[in-house]
């Protein structure tokens, strides 16, 4: 359970005397840090780095586009206890040994939108998407790693083709032709992309933030899937199959050891450890048929940013990659 200073103040004002636990929590909150409760202990949220936020251009986009907390968001007073869009997804893919998670998470979101909003079954090319993203970054297709939110921008400016026109390769195979261009057919077929999207920053536990689980519930219950970038600090799942926050020997949440992008497709609130249902790209035999169950506290602690897509396009102007 995440606690803010305001919530803490409300709870303490109803008590006649503060406990030791209250005082330890107060110390954390007094340093302007939010806290989460893990295994009965209060621990501070790790402060996010500047890199973990939208840059100035992205903030402008985020401000200019819906949804806002009380604007286009669905009725947040009435979110159901669980939402699960996993049956509406295309099959779980496998990124193999490349750091192309942003491509997989982004295209999984587009494929589901095409399937459900446009009644269009399409398997989009992650290989082509990575070529495109790396081209924007001034690199060849053998490079990988990308800030998740940039994918939304790139896919709204340039399209990708279907998988069969530019099939995915593992690291060894792609390394043989890092600088090769995609086929003419792939370039001509690169018409699938994003019409409209909204960026979500990591603003803390309140408001339109990737760390606000109420907000994410809102979006999911409104029919959206959420592409999100997260720090990696999980260990093995608990007995219920949920990946939760882990603490170090000093009682602090484990430091990040990497970054990953996935697609949030649902949540389950009325269980011992509430969790989000997250489509990964490590094949269908990983975790729950390819889906992770990430605890609410994990997303509060480690979520960086994300985006949702409002409109799928099949007519992005073709430009040579």
């Amino acid at each position, binding site marked *: 359970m995440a606690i803010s200073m305001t919530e803490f103040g409300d709870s303490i004002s109803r008590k006649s005397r503060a406990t030791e636990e209250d005082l330890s929590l107060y110390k954390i909150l007094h340093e302007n840090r939010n806290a989460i409760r893990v295994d009965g202990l209060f621990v501070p949220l790790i402060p996010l*780095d*500047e*890199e*973990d936020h939208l840059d100035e251009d992205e903030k402008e986009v985020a401000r200019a586009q819906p949804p806002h907390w009380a604007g286009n968001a669905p009725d947040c007073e009435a979110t159901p206890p669980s939402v699960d869009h996993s049956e509406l997804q295309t099959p779980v893919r496998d*990124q*193999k*040994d*490349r*750091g*192309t*998670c*942003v491509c997989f998470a982004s295209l999984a979101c587009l494929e589901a939108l095409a399937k459900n909003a446009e009644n269009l079954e399409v398997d989009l090319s992650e290989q082509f998407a990575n070529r495109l993203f790396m081209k924007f970054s001034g690199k060849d297709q053998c*490079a*990988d*790693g*990308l*800030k*998740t939110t*940039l994918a939304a921008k790139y896919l709204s400016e340039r399209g990708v083709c279907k998988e069969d026109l530019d099939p995915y390769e593992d*690291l060894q195979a792609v390394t043989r032709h890092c600088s090769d261009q995609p086929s003419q057919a792939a370039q001509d077929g690169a018409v699938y992309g994003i019409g409209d999207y909204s960026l979500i920053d990591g603003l803390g536990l309140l408001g339109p933030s990737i760390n606000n689980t109420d907000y994410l519930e809102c979006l999911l219950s409104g029919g959206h899937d959420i592409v999100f*970038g*997260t720090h*990696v600090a999980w*260990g*093995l799942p608990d007995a219920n199959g949920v990946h939760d926050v882990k603490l170090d020997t000093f009682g602090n949440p*484990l430091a*990040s*050891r*990497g*970054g*990953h*992008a996935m697609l949030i497709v649902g949540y389950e609130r009325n269980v011992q450890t509430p969790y989000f249902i997250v489509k990964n790209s*490590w*094949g269908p035999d*990983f975790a729950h048929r390819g889906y992770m169950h990430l605890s609410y506290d994990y997303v509060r602690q480690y979520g*960086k940013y994300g985006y949702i897509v409002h409109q799928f396009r099949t007519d992005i102007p073709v430009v040579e990659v």
Partner: protein
Amino acid sequence: MDAKLIEGLLHRVDKRHYKGRVGELVYIDFPPVPFTRDTEFLALKVETIGDAVEEPPVEERAKGEGLVLPSQIVRRGAKPGTSYVVVRAYDSLTQEEMAGVDPLKISIDIEK
């Protein structure tokens, strides 16, 4: 985790020698180790040996999602000499250094 795989990823870096001057920042690129199912529990730990460089209070440039951290570190020349940055691979579940994975050693020569 597959030690041979991790060893291969960690050592696929071309530049292992950097030069700088006292007071200047030196940006050291590590090999991009993709974050995948094979590296799910890999943790890279960095140790600086020698006093020719120091850790400056600047942000290190992240490279977004898809990679094991750190992918780049920053050091500042402190005095003439040579320092080394050593990157070791750990299993985050056991917190033990991975057997069979040689540490990556990068040298930094600092001039006046």
